[in-house]
């Protein structure tokens, strides 16, 4: 046991003392923040303003299109052929052509453009036309405009989960989805990052030719486990430092901008009281309701369960895979030879990420159940399910199996490792590795 401790300490300290560890620790939270901000930023730059020129032969719609931030409308008093010919001079990005209807209402509408109009513009126009057409038809049937206005509705559906003990818990699918996906992807990255670290460590010892010196002092199994546990501690340290650093950053930002924040809060309160005073409460401004919802969503997250689950599945997912990564490392002489053996290890991980959407859209379905039960996919799949709430027995079964999987993988890997570390030269085949295992 003393020797394993020595090995763990060396594996841990050499990695933690590296400059790259320090850099990753500092850059990690910044990168993560960037990862979250980037999509928002990109969505703002891609939604540049588009001008749509309307050629309406039917005469129904010209008044019906409202300008938005992204789409501006302009009526063209031209024939469609002239409009197409003069496309470049008109100063419009798109031409919306509504032909003379053969029956009462137009049903075939064309959008001309030199570039892809983008889904947002297209769907906005489609919705707008459909809306107008519906109103026109209703009017034609003789329904008064004020009735049409009255039947417009804006309903939100909240799902509430009834728990066995009778309490109720409000479900927030969007929040749970994001939480699950983020946690699942984080586990995916961690397994790959630290698993590859173990593998590189094993290859390093082989190519350095230090391995035989080491195994004359310690058992190969001790060496392998020491490395795996040492790197696991590196991972946990990094994770912990990220959490601390992120919290410090957030708190620092709150402190630095506390005046602005206070202002914002009073604004919000005023807005809320104003809207409360107004006779139509559903007209509450969108931004306000979103902000309140977001606050509400975050405050009701079951942090202990999620963080506990994350740490558990990170640890055991990593342990299971890193043992196999160590076996791969022991079988080859250099990193380029690992590709072939990495494939069977990466497939289940990539599969669980590819099916993440399916799991999230039906977290209690059979696919989700099986993926979150099989140890090779459960670390990611279960992490996606946990925010939605998982029956205790399923969680217990999954946890039990992943621990079992870890023990089996370690046993299997140790047998390959023991032989592989002393083999140099030709890259082994799967058949040879199987023989090492049987030996």
């Amino acid at each position, binding site marked *: 046991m003393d020797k394993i401790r020595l090995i763990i300490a060396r594996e841990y300290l*050499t990695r933690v003392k590296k400059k790259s560890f320090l850099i990753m620790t500092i850059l990690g939270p910044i990168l993560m923040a960037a990862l979250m901000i980037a999509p928002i930023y990109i969505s703002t730059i891609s939604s540049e303003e588009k001008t749509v020129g309307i050629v309406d032969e039917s005469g129904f719609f010209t008044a019906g299109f409202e300008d938005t931030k992204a789409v501006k409308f302009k009526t063209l008093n031209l024939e469609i052929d002239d409009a197409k010919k003069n496309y470049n001079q008109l100063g419009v990005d798109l031409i919306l052509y509504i032909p003379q209807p053969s029956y009462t209402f137009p049903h075939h509408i064309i959008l001309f453009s030199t570039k892809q109009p983008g889904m947002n513009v297209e769907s906005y126009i489609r919705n707008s036309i459909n809306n107008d057409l519906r109103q026109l038809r209703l009017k034609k049937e003789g329904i008064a405009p004020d009735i049409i206005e009255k039947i417009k509705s804006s309903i939100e559906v909240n799902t509430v989960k009834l728990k066995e003990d009778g309490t109720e818990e409000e479900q927030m699918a969007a929040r749970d989805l994001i939480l699950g996906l983020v946690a699942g992807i984080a586990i995916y990255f961690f397994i790959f990052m630290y698993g590859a670290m173990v593998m590189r460590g094993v290859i390093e010892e082989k190519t*350095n030719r230090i391995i035989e010196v080491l195994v004359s*002092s310690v058992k190969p199994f001790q060496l392998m486990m020491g490395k795996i546990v040492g790197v696991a501690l590196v991972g946990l340290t990094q994770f912990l430092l990220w959490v601390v650093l992120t919290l410090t950053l957030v708190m620092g930002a709150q402190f630095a901008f506390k005046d602005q924040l206070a202002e914002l809060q009073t604004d919000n309160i005023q807005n809320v009281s104003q809207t409360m005073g107004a006779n139509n409460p559903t007209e509450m401004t969108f931004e306000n309701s979103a902000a309140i919802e977001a606050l509400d969503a975050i405050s009701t997250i079951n942090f202990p369960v999620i963080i506990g689950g994350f740490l558990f599945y990170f640890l055991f997912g990593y342990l299971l895979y890193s043992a196999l990564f160590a076996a791969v490392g022991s079988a080859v002489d250099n990193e380029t030879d690992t590709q072939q053996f990495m494939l069977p290890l990466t497939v289940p991980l990539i599969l669980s990420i590819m099916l993440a959407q399916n799991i999230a859209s039906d977290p209690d379905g059979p696919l989700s159940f099986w993926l979150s039960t099989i140890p090779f996919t459960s670390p990611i799949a279960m992490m996606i399910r946990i925010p939605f709430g998982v029956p205790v027995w399923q969680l217990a079964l999954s946890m039990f199996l992943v621990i079992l999987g870890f023990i089996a993988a370690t046993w299997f890997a140790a047998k390959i490792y023991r032989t592989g570390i002393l083999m140099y030269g030709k890259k082994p085949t799967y058949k040879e590795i199987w023989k090492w295992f049987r030996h």
Partner: protein
Amino acid sequence: MDILVAQQINKRFEKHQALTDINIAIPEGSIYGLLGPNGAGKTTFIRIINQILGQDSGTIHLSGELLNPKHIKMIGYLPEERGLYKKMKVGEQAIYLAMLKGLSRSDAFSQLKQWFEKFEIGNWWDRKVEELSKGMQQKVQFIVTILHKPKLLIFDEPFSGFDPINANLLKSEIINLRNEGATIIFSTHNMSSVEEICDRIALINQSKVILEGKVSDIKNNHRTNLYQIEFQPKSTTFENTFPENFKIIGRKETLMGQQLTIRIDKEQNTTELLEYVMNHARLLQFQEVVPSMNDIFIKTVNNSSNRNKNGQN
């Protein structure tokens, strides 16, 4: 007393028989050479002693006890495939390796400091291994191997990659260690080093021990009764009147005169030959042609390989 006794050791890898019925006894305090061509099974045998591999059958006793994990502390092993962590600091790494052998940190530190001074690498303590020359790295490896004062030292091809100066340093240290009571097993195919320092050898070829014994005995048994004389002849008829019972099997012009290689039958002595030469020429040099271990090695290996081939046919 024998420190290590191996009896009937067999080891097989897949299709390849690595060791066949190996019986070797190594006397305490000796320098024992394990010789043999590449792939003969030397390293496999050494790995079994180090408990890196397990034998299929047979027993090994170390100091009278069946080989067990406690013995790891008693053995110092310098493998043929040896290296260090490149990115780690020299001193830190030496301490780590010493502690893996069971030394305490403070013991490892104080002893390492002494050895580093002795080998003149003290200034490199805080440098990374990759900054060291190959010779210096080998010094570090050697120190780490012997630091825990093992009773049995195993060197697998210790001189490969050493420059002559370091090789000499290593040689004298190995002899020192033996004088202090350690037993040394030495695996090599470099025969000149065997002659210089080994007391006993075992020659392994194709998984079997084909020759075993004291170096002096082996050399005696392989005497060829060949002698070389170098001389300046007094007359041109030197060879014409040469005694017929001495067979000349080789001749060579040298800087100083002539050299003859002569075979003498076992019963004869060299006096008659010397008398003739002294009467008819000026004698410069006279010596027995003793086969080098290299010759014995090649001859024995070829013989046994041929025998195996014939046996298979």
